């Protein structure tokens, strides 16, 4: 398993899908570990009844069907599929509505979905998903990107309430790729994935949604920042090490 994770850390993020299915076939005995530890790009399906798109993941899957957060129905229809309790479904409906606005404000487009389910220790788990196509042909407002994908997966475990507080454990993953393409620069492509965790004990006075939302907003912002500044910055540093730009200045002068 360690070797498999070692490979996943090195192989190009754009090949994650292929690499994962290759590993699954090489080591079927580790399939559940692989599927839980390797994040895959998100897929989207259209809920025909509400005419809205929703995101597919392990958390809304039962057999070969996926539950839409908008209608609470499985697609394709499934007899006795799993559903959250009425109380949790109400929170899920509210979370989906609010998260759609959050998604709009940060992403200016994109699809969001929230799924919740009861867990074994009297708490629950919520999964907040965002998928954004930022390309010119997708939802890219500014039209700079030839290709651009952003997938965010936030899984948050909420412990049972205890004296007015609850413990929240959040694991966030962002997978992205962006490509620009023009005459002077050719093809310029950055892609990657990072995952971080954050835990807090918070008062539930303002409600679970408020607490979960703030944690997600904070961690998502941090992930975006470190991708932008640390991770992209490191690749830029590498380019400058390979060919130091100081030479540019002298190059501009004619050779006389």
């Amino acid at each position, binding site marked *: 398993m360690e070797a498999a994770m070692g490979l996943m850390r090195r192989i190009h993020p754009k090949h994650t899908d292929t690499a994962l299915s290759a590993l699954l076939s*090489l080591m079927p005995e580790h399939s559940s570990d692989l599927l839980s530890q390797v994040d895959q790009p998100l897929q989207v399906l259209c809920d025909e009844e509400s005419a809205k798109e929703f995101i597919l993941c392990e958390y809304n899957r039962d057999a070969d069907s996926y539950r839409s957060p908008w209608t609470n129905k499985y697609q394709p229809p499934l007899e006795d599929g799993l559903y959250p309790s009425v109380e949790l479904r109400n929170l899920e409906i509210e979370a989906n509505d609010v998260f759609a606005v959050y998604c709009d404000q940060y992403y200016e487009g994109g699809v969001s979905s929230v799924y919740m389910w009861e867990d074994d220790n009297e708490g629950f788990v919520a999964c907040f998903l965002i998928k954004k196509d930022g390309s010119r042909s997708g939802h890219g407002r500014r039209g700079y990107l030839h290709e651009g994908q952003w997938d965010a997966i936030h899984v948050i475990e909420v412990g049972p309430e205890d004296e007015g507080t609850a413990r929240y454990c959040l694991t966030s993953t962002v997978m992205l790729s962006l490509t620009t393409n023009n005459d002077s620069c050719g093809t310029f492509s950055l892609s990657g994935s990072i995952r971080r965790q954050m835990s807090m004990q918070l008062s539930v006075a303002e409600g679970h949604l408020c607490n979960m939302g703030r944690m997600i907003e904070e961690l998502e912002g941090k992930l975006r920042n470190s991708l932008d500044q640390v991770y992209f910055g490191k690749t830029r540093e590498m380019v400058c090490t390979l060919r130091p730009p100081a030479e540019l200045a002298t190059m501009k002068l004619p050779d006389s």
Partner: protein
Amino acid sequence: MADADSSEPEQQLNPKQKIEIAKWFLLNSPAGEIQYISKDLKTILKDDNVHNLAALEAFPQYNKSHMICLEFPDRSSDVIISSFSEVSDNEYLDPRTAQVAIVDHVKQVCTEARPASDEELPSSYIEEFRCALDAEIMKYASEAYPKGISAVYCVKGNDVEEPGSDFELVVLISAARLSPNNFCNGSWRSIWNIEFNDEDQSVEIKGKLLVGAHYFEEGNVQLDASHECKDSTLLQNPDDSALAITNIIRQQESEYLAALEASYLKLPDTTFKDLRRKLPVTRTLFPWHSTMQFSLTRDIAKELTIRK
């Protein structure tokens, strides 16, 4: 355990399929990381035979496409492994020293060297052009790339003895920086095809630049950039041609580096913003405490659209 295996025969891969998968991983290794990928694969495959066969097929292909540089056993100079320098499966020509390096692809070392035969080297007429260009390129590459290795090969018209025929040279510059301890590797590859056309006394120059970088401390982020460009100049004597060609290459590569820098500078405020903004459109953090109103407005909006 054996029973459990045989109950799912469709999941069992035959050795050939395993070799194909292993080759895919090896060939897709980032710059300088094939040995690490190979080691992890060996653990996963648990079958040294499959691993060795995959390595034997994948390493030569990887070494050539990544244009890795190997030192001669006497440390006198480096040879670039590429399809342009390939004499046979494990022999690669270094025209500068007129030597052929005998390499072990899987270990990625040069084990022996032998003098190149006359047939492997260009005619003295071509060699004048090749040698002059090599000297200029070497000077340029050592200034521009701290770890750059360059070479110039004749790929067409090796036996041209005098003016009146076309010939073609290829300039390679390969620079790699590997610092696995800092979780960072990268490579810069330049491939320049230089066609000397006798009829119109011109030199056509076509370049392909490939830049890659990988940073993987608690994550996995990769840069892939490539650019193609072309230019031309007049056919002159070997020394003047060498100067003119090297100037063009220097200028094109400097411009490309500047364009790469510009792409990075544009990231935070334009390109990246199309994926996700730093702050919401409202420019303040999301109002999680007053989200009830969103649900309400949505409900009202929904009601309204239904009634319409």
